[in-house]
């Protein structure tokens, strides 16, 4: 039995979803399942309500933020480099230690290795220790920030800000940067605003059934 299931479902109507959901959940009463309800707030809330009535609860909610590419004040930081295979193992360990596997969709090690091969994992080294990392994807004109992390032992050393500036510099040929942030993480939201991101009407309500 897996620890939890991610459920992917597409429906043509709320009524059909309600019927399908009732039937589906009755078959898997003992499973832990996670549902992501994604869309505009006004689209999501009726679906969230149906899921609530079927016994699910909102674990967390994320909002999408966008930034249109503009020149940044970029200063090369010698602590920052592209991740090697050895770094990937440490990045994986930190992801599993500091991120919530149920709600933050931690990539498999194979996926992390692919990111590293593409040069899309930036790491910040402090005296030989991995102090922070940033993982991103570039799809033609869009640069997606997937994970941005500074180890608690290295806060206030400008690790995060230099990683983010490096990420913005890497994506200077793209037209926009996108990311999802947990709404309740006010510190992160404020930081993203500081770097020119703004919130979109696009939400992800992570709901759990146990």
């Amino acid at each position, binding site marked *: 039995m897996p620890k939890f299931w991610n459920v992917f479902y*597409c*429906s*043509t109507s709320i009524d059909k979803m309600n019927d399908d959901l009732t039937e589906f959940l009755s078959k898997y009463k003992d499973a832990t399942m996670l549902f992501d309800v*994604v*869309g*505009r707030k006004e*689209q999501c809330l009726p679906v969230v309500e149906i899921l609530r009535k079927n016994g699910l609860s909102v674990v967390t909610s994320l909002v*999408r933020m966008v930034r*249109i590419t503009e020149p940044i004040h970029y200063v090369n930081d010698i602590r920052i480099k592209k991740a090697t295979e050895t770094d990937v193992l440490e990045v994986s360990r930190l992801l599993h230690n500091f991120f919530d596997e149920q709600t933050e969709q931690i990539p498999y090690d194979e996926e992390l290795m692919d990111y590293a091969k593409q040069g899309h994992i930036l790491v910040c080294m402090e005296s030989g220790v991995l102090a922070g990392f940033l993982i991103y994807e*570039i*799809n*033609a*004109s*869009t640069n997606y920030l997937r994970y941005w992390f500074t180890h608690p032992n290295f806060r206030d050393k400008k690790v995060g800000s230099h990683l983010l500036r490096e990420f913005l510099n890497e994506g200077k040929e*793209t*037209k*926009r940067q*996108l990311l999802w942030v947990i709404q309740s993480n006010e510190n992160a939201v404020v930081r993203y605003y500081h770097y020119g991101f703004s919130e979109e009407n*696009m939400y992800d309500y992570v709901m759990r059934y146990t």
Partner: protein
Amino acid sequence: MKKQIIKILTELRPEFDFSQESVDFIEEGMLDSFDMVNLVNELDTTYCISIDGVDILPENFSTVEAILKLLEKNGVK
């Protein structure tokens, strides 16, 4: 109708130029799956239709022509 589709797309993602006919919006990263969700909502509202879930495929939103065909399939003229 092409102009109206371009207007909808531009309102959705003002950072991009959707008037270029040779560009594939999906391949170029101008629309991702979440943008498609919003686009379907806009098209449904604008044209009083209900695009079927099975038609929510990247290839149906990759160009203005593809969107036009999808609308025609839904009875929009």
